[in-house]
């Protein structure tokens, strides 16, 4: 029940295209869903996050879509750029300062010119 599933494992997108990464969770107690971006040799950085009271959140080229009834959420990267090439982790947790974050297994995104 603590697991977060993520797909695809790897993704290759042409520059200017849309990158889509999908995640699913089981524990309905989760109420905070962040996405982390990690470049090689760096720590993960919080990219964007959503709470289940909204169905979509957009920040620049990055959009999270959230389907509470299906227990699914996805990251869309519009106008993908080579600089977006990184590993993306979806995650889920409860909104407390000490509850552990459950990470998905990650998606390696390559944006080719």
């Amino acid at each position: 029940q603590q697991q977060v599933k993520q797909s695809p494992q790897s993704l290759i997108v042409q520059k200017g295209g849309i990158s889509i990464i999908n995640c699913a969770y089981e524990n309905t107690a989760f109420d905070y869903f962040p996405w982390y971006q990690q470049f090689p040799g760096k720590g993960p950085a919080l990219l964007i996050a959503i709470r289940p009271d909204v169905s979509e959140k957009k920040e620049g080229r990055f959009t999270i879509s959230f389907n509470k009834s299906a227990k699914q959420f996805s990251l869309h990267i519009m106008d993908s750029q080579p600089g977006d090439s990184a590993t993306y982790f979806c995650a889920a947790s409860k909104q407390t300062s000490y509850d552990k974050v459950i990470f998905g297994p990650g998606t390696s995104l390559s944006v080719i010119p």
Partner: protein
Amino acid sequence: DAMVIQNPRYQVTQFGKPVTLSCSQTLNHNVMYWYQQKSSQAPKLLFHYYDKDFNNEADTPDNFQSRRPNTSFCFLDIRSPGLGDAAMYLCATSGGDFSYEQYFGPGTRLTVT
């Protein structure tokens, strides 16, 4: 800028030789976490401190210990590193205004020879 700092960035140790990794933060967050991340995998939580309260994950080997002498600093001690302990070790903090958000340091890459 407020941040999470990890030293050293790269550490080489010999099989069985104790090693200590350090983390400091200027965010004044009350929660600090240690994660282990192996290649192409998600970060795996080892333990966390909520203020001075230590919380160990059930599957964290006894070989891994931690100390938090004050709010700003946290240490990861690996008492007898094995080849399987070679990984990136990530420190993270949470507990600011948006207390559920975790902020990661750049990581320490540990090599065991």
